[in-house]
């Protein structure tokens, strides 16, 4: 912890980040890394995570807010600066969180829900073009292809974190320290590599 972090930067209006995906994808870990980075970079931060029934393969949402003084921990509709989706169609389900000019960071990983296999609404054909027609400001991440470079399919969330990190003025060292203090020691290196890959995505 550096000494600056106890001093909160003044005059910063509240901004929001939303992470969505499917239970088990590592959303809570990723959002904890973000929140810790915000705190150590000298901002007030609040973060809301959904537990309970959402873990059983349901949609998961984590909401993060930062600024000089954050009031509500919940993100108002249409205000998030960035919407990160660890799954291909989930960003569209939670489109209402994102500000119209906000950035969507979407992984191409598709997880087909049971309802699509047994019900009437199939898993839709969605590609980069479909997503761009909804989110003009989009970073589409070929996540599994990217993780092959580092040999760990579970690091998708950290690649997306890297992409998100370019949108905020937090020192890169703070991101890396948050990764080091949050993930298990044996996964630190692979996550740092994943973060770098994400940070260089366009």
């Amino acid at each position, binding site marked *: 912890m550096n000494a600056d972090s106890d001093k909160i930067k003044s005059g910063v209006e509240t901004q929001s980040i939303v992470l969505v995906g499917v239970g088990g994808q590592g959303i809570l870990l990723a959002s904890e890394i973000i929140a810790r980075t915000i*705190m150590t970079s000298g901002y007030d931060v609040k973060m809301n995570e959904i537990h*309970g029934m959402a873990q059983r393969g349901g949609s998961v949402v984590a909401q993060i807010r930062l600024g000089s003084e954050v009031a509500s921990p919940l993100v108002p*509709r249409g205000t998030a600066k960035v919407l990160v989706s660890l799954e291909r169609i989930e960003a569209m389900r939670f489109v209402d969180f994102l500000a119209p000019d906000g950035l969507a960071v979407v992984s191409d990983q598709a997880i087909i829900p049971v*309802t699509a296999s047994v019900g009437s609404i199939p898993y839709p054909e969605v590609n980069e073009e479909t997503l761009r027609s909804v989110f003009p400001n989009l970073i589409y991440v070929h996540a599994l292809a990217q993780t092959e470079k580092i040999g760990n399919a579970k690091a998708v969330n950290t690649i997306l974190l890297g992409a998100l990190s370019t949108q905020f003025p937090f020192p890169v060292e703070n991101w890396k320290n948050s990764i080091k203090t949050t993930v298990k020691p044996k996964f630190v290196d692979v996550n740092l590599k994943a973060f770098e890959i994400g940070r260089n995505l366009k």
Partner: protein
Amino acid sequence: MKQLLTGNEAIARGAWEAGVSVVSGYPGTPSTEILENLSKFYKDDVFCEWAPNEKVGFEVAIGASSAGARAMTTMKHVGLNVAADPLMTFAYIGAIGGFVAVVADDPGMNSSQNEQDTREFAKFAKIPVIEPSDSAEALAFTKEAFEISENFGTPVILRSTTTLSHSRGCVEPGERVALNRTIRFEKDPPRHVPIPAWARPMHQRLLKRLAELQDAASSSPLNRIEWRDRRVGIITHGVTYHHVREVFPEASVLKLGWCYPWPDKLLREFAEGVDRVIIVEELEGLIEEHVKALGISCVGKTLEDEVLVPRLYEINVDVLLEVRRKLTETGLYPFEPIRLMTAEKENPNKKNIPALPPRPPVLCPGCPHRGIFYALGRFDVVVTGDIGCYTLGVAPPLNRIDTTTCMGAGVTMAHGMEKAGNDRRVVGIVGDSTFFHSGITGLLDIGYNKGKAITIVLDNRITAMTGHQDNPGTGKTIIGEETFAASVAEIGRAVGIKNIVEVNPFKLNETLAVLKKAIKSDEAWLIVSIAPCPLAYRQVASAPLTVSQDKCKKCKACLKLGCPGIEREGDEIRINQLLCNGCGLCSEVCAFGALGCVAK
């Protein structure tokens, strides 16, 4: 050093700092992590336990408090219904060592069967209710709750809500107080035994205490006035305060962190200091009712006979923006719109979003409950269900839960339906933890009153839905110590059930044979379906299965299992190799031998 803690982590830390020495509770979203954190970080200082149910947990804490120790109990809102009996009378008896009941409400019903407002219970029992608004307050208010409890000899409810419990915020932790007290129960029957002759003076003392608490609440730092523009004053509470600050930044605010017993002096002072009072409270309109009873004019739940602040679900910024709009329209809120109201929020490209299949929570790949529900689907029976992961068996394609009321009702409703002469056999379903919680008495009722219902205990060796807590059947305490493991079958025998069978739910034919026999018979049965939760025990049954496309006849029988590992795209059935747990249930339902372990 500043830490980023959830409300639940902060409550645990606050209790530890306050010198708590006994904590007993029952898991329930969103309260579960409070006791988990206490047992994980502070087990050397604090005795922690999972009680079989909330009533037990509450009473254990009463015992500790009565001997002079600081004690706490934790539960979700509906847990307090189970613990209502000790709550109501302990309010009469009063605490000696500080006593705090942490009750976590679930406005919006994220993971609950109702959204009852625990503040009503505090009023009913005539005890204080404390409501922190964020993690920092969760820590500070928990400590203060112990002080109030001990200073006034009252049990205190610390009320959390889902958003407080599961939000992180910056917290500055402190040290644990050294209480250095002798734990010794002082014999004093009129003080501790509410036989009618002593209960009457107890009730008198309770009312006197209530009046004293009311004065204390008015001067407590847990309640505060923030003067801003005096034309509008908003009274609010708990987490809702933060949403109010964001949507009504101009208004003066009375923030209640200790709303009951009502801080009348403060309520009057605030009302006199502003032109107009607006009450923004989540769920019930309790503050509003009381403020009106004081003769103070205000608006809250309704405005001109229409809903203003909804009584339904969680309050958030978006809900309050709508409230602000209505207030502005009727001239009650005389300020220019804030940017949150004027900014463009609608994505103009939403029309390009295709229809999305819903993604509700489902039984996991490899879940043992699936086998029982699938098997029950072969019989024309009524299935009375209960509270746990297995409630998810109500969803298609399994569709095999017909009722759910509360913990334990899976067993008892089956008995009642059978006694009413229902035209089909009735099967009650209950999980292992729920069976120990409140299924045993129901089974005793069946045994005692010559019932014929079939009870199935889905024993997955863990309290699963709340995130895998130990229970009396797992053989482990909360801190992982080995202990006695209660046996469902032995309990069944002891309460008079003659037909008791254990089945492995992954062996479909065996399970079907047992069910057939039980359903055909005219007697009570206890079927214990034993297979551990693969998520809790990190068990992989075998390598992921694959589908032989040559053998697959596209009959879709396997899809009737509702397994997230089995995916259909068009007509093709595939098994998701990342999700499959290898339980093999799908290979049992496939008549063509198309699903199985294939050497790659």
